[in-house]
């Protein structure tokens, strides 16, 4: 609960922040909302030697609509996004993160960079097939959601890179639902299921995406469920049948609150519920 010693800078431009990170090397860490990094530091599970606080870096906060996408600045807080209907599943999922105090501080960039498979936004990004824009002091690049999360709290972002922006398709004609199963309202998901469904004119499932929180060391897509439902009528029978496949191929780690078997069971139940809600049946 008492962090080890570290240096601290709060640069006022993105370039200065990137330079500071590069200069600080492997043990320098960006600090956004601090709600994932500071607890780790207090438990001395993370011992960075330099914190580069992004609080004064301008221009990285807010969500803008551009063509068929949303561009969301990396420093946009959960509270800036929560409950906003026009943001679809992003608005829904951000309102389910922790409690209001955490949502007031935590950022979308921090959440994605942290890469915790129990966090909600990585799952949402994977389901939406979004991308993140990252930069170091020399160059910038785009990383697709499918390539971003490599292992437990390990992402494709290099130590000298910062996420500047998150891009997600607006998916306006898709139904969406995020079913987050927790013990207490403020907890991390024991299992979370994000379902996105596009209904065809004939009521059948034109397209579907399902992704899981906390079912593996990274967020994962439930491809078996998607295959089973795509092209089918969106009936409750078809949804129930598809949801039965939810645990297929998963090997979730057990923890204090859930054995792997129970998690697989929850995944099936929550997938059915999420799909039903997303499809409006």
């Amino acid at each position, binding site marked *: *609960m*008492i*962090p*080890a*010693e570290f240096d601290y800078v709060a640069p006022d431009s993105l370039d200065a922040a990137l330079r500071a990170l590069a200069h600080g090397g492997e043990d320098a860490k960006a600090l956004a909302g601090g709600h994932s990094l500071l607890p780790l530091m207090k*438990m001395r599970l993370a011992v960075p030697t330099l914190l580069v606080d992004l609080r004064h870096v301008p221009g990285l906060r807010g969500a803008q609509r551009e063509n068929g996408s949303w561009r969301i600045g990396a420093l946009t807080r959960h509270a800036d996004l929560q409950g906003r209907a026009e943001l679809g599943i992003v608005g829904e999922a951000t309102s389910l993160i922790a*409690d209001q105090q955490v949502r007031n501080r935590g950022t979308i960039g921090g959440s994605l960079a942290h890469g915790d498979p129990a966090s909600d936004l990585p799952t949402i990004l994977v389901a939406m097939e979004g991308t993140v824009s990252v930069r170091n002091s020399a160059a910038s690049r785009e990383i697709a959601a499918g390539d971003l999360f490599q292992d437990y709290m390990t992402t494709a972002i290099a130590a000298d890179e910062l996420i500047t922006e998150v891009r997600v398709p607006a998916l306006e004609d898709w139904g969406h639902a995020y079913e987050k*199963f927790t*013990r*207490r*309202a*403020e*907890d*991390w998901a*024991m299992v979370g299921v994000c379902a996105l469904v596009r209904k065809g004119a004939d009521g059948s499932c034109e397209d579907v995406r399902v992704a899981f929180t906390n079912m593996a060391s990274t967020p994962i897509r439930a491809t078996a469920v998607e295959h089973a439902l795509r092209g089918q009528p969106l009936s409750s029978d078809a949804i129930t049948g598809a949801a039965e496949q939810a645990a297929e191929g998963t090997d979730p780690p057990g923890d*204090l*609150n*859930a*054995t792997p078997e*129970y998690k697989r*069971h*929850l995944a099936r*139940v929550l997938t059915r519920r999420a799909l039903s809600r997303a499809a409006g049946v």
Partner: protein
Amino acid sequence: MTAVDSRAQGGFVGRPMKRKEDPRLITGRATYVDDIQPVGTLWMAFVRSPEAHARVTSIDTSAALAREDVVAVFTGDDLEGIAAPLPCAWVPPGVEVNAPEHWPLAKGHVAHVGDPVALVIGVDRYSVVDAAEDVVVEYEPLPVVVDPEEALKDEVLVHPGLGSNKVHEWSLGGGDLDAGFAAADVVIERRIVNHRVAGGAIEPRAVLAEERAGHITIWSSTQVPHFLRLFLSILLGLSEERIRVIAPEVGGGFGSKLQIYGEEILCAWAAQRVGRPVKWVETRSEAMMVTHHGRDQIATVRVGAKRDGTVTAFHAKILADFGAYLMLLTPAVPALGAFVMSGCYRFPAVQTDIVGVLTNKFSTDAIRGAGRPEATHMIEVAMDQLAHELGLDPLDVRRRNFIAADDFPHETALGIVYDSGNYQASLAKLLEHLDVAAFRAEQERLRGEGIHRGLGFSTYTEICGLAPSRVVGPGGFGLQTGLWESALVRVHLTGAVTVYTGTSPHGQGHETGFAQIVADRLGCDPEQVEVVHGDTAAGPQGLGTYGSRSLAVGGEAVAKATAKVVEKGKALVAHKLEASPDDIEVRDGRWIVRGSPEQGMTLAEVAGSAYIPEDIPEGMEPGLEETAFYDPNNFVFPFGAHAAIVDVDAETGKVKVVRYLAVDDCGPAINPLLIDGQVHGGIVHSIGQALYEQVIYDEIGQLVTGTFVDYALPTAAEIPSIETDRTETPSPVNSLGVKGIGEAGTIAASAAVANAVIDALRPLGVDYMDMPFTPMRVWNAIQEGQQ
């Protein structure tokens, strides 16, 4: 003094006054230990064992000592100034207690994760933690036992030198148990596990000690400053008058600060050693690990009954897991439950047999309710199980066994005398708010929709107001103390009043409730009455706050001291106004002559005459202050009826409390708002245990629930709006008629929730399951029930 309109309505007692202490607490102006920073304060941190059981083979402090920011490092070898191990204050006459020595720093052997092996003193809070990491300790791991039933086999010894893990056996019974079971038509038996919980006070423990010129002052976040002074005196070999203990604002205790902790002793000891103030503030991780836990009992409960539900015998065998050491009250806790193992019922034969056992976990001790939540849980869950076995309505079974309302004071088969009660009335009042028939219809309808709703009751009584010394003291139950309480009431020259109480509140609201009692009697406003507590240098010796004793014992002491002031004041007023003292009364803020209210004095005028004694009765001492000590002749027995309604999501196992109703009786209300606050908090505490909270160690004794992420305290989002009501049955024990209410909610609620969950699960094939009702456990139970 301006008149206050409330007095027209009959005084301040009974009014739902907002708490005087709240503005400073809410605006961040309260002073906790961590806010106090004498010049030159050093910090203390501990090196704690990562092993649950080990021999300490070496400790290398050189790297830590070499740091510039470190002032001293001490280990168990340095403790020669500490005269005795940490205390256990329960020495039951005639009972053999197998107790390990418990030193504040381990002497070569550690018995639980977090057992301190060294302490580091340095210049700031950060560097001492760094330095503690530089102390190199080598451990030779020893076999670990965490399961109390395993521990009882003595295959692995927690303290090899003790020869056995079994601590003691203790029984309390009354009536003929064999005859009771022989007369029964049915006998049910259930194994009831009451799992380990933490206190979870929001302010962790904190200690600051400063020695000056042979006198030492200790600020500690404690419920028992006077006991702490006593034990500091004994352990440090210092005369008591040279020790001052201050419990400043204390941010919650729930029993976890009714303790004499090694860190408190070491902080004072170290301050003497280094000659500078030393401070230690517990981290949350330490609090989860080494602030005492509670409960952790495995009970086998047998109930014999007639077909009509009349109970003929009740027998509880309890295996209590004490953890690695006996702390202040560790072995006494399960025994406190035994005193009310008859519940609110006329059981002709009742017996509790307790076995205490050591394990490689941290110690258990008193946590809110201390033994009585466990007892009530056993009784009330068993009553429901019995009713189900007999095919009877659980409320009918309760009513059939209730002690009659006209049968008080009532001596139970255990020889305990319940002071007053009316269990029928509290249940009837509860049912005014809850239509059971309508509920059952709704329950049926919801099941059709796949929602499993359940209703559970708990009708309870408990024993509190700890006192009376002759019963609980050394020759009785065996606590090595008296348990009276004290108060000093001082009226100042201006008519302002300071009350010193020996109780030590830490969130309960004594400053408001006690002020209401005093204000009515002295004819002043509670705003003028300051209640001072938690400082051994201010006011008389006292005993602290725990066991729901503050109002029933401490409040009565305040009333008694105030009565002495009133008596003196009346004599003074009578002298001034040339009337008889018997004709003086305090009314509407004035001390008047009965029948001629135009003749009178204000409290300020009375005090003025007492402090400028130009004209006082012959032989009267000047001044206006009095002290009283009060030792009641019995405990008090609050009671009530609670109901919980829960929804179980049968697909996932998740339980939600959708309604909670509580009717409690703690005698005449001094302040209904304070009662509601205690009842709400108590119920939440118990819902917490039933559904969310559990201290878990893995099989090698590592603490798994070391943070508030894993140890799931409920939040407002998990708790429905609690519906409360009261009945008021005065206690004959004290003049206020009051009983304690700080623990009642906790004592009552877990059984109501358990019965509700089981009621919901019955159609799914689950007739019984233990707390905690976490989603996975409930889901597993449903899977088993369906097979």
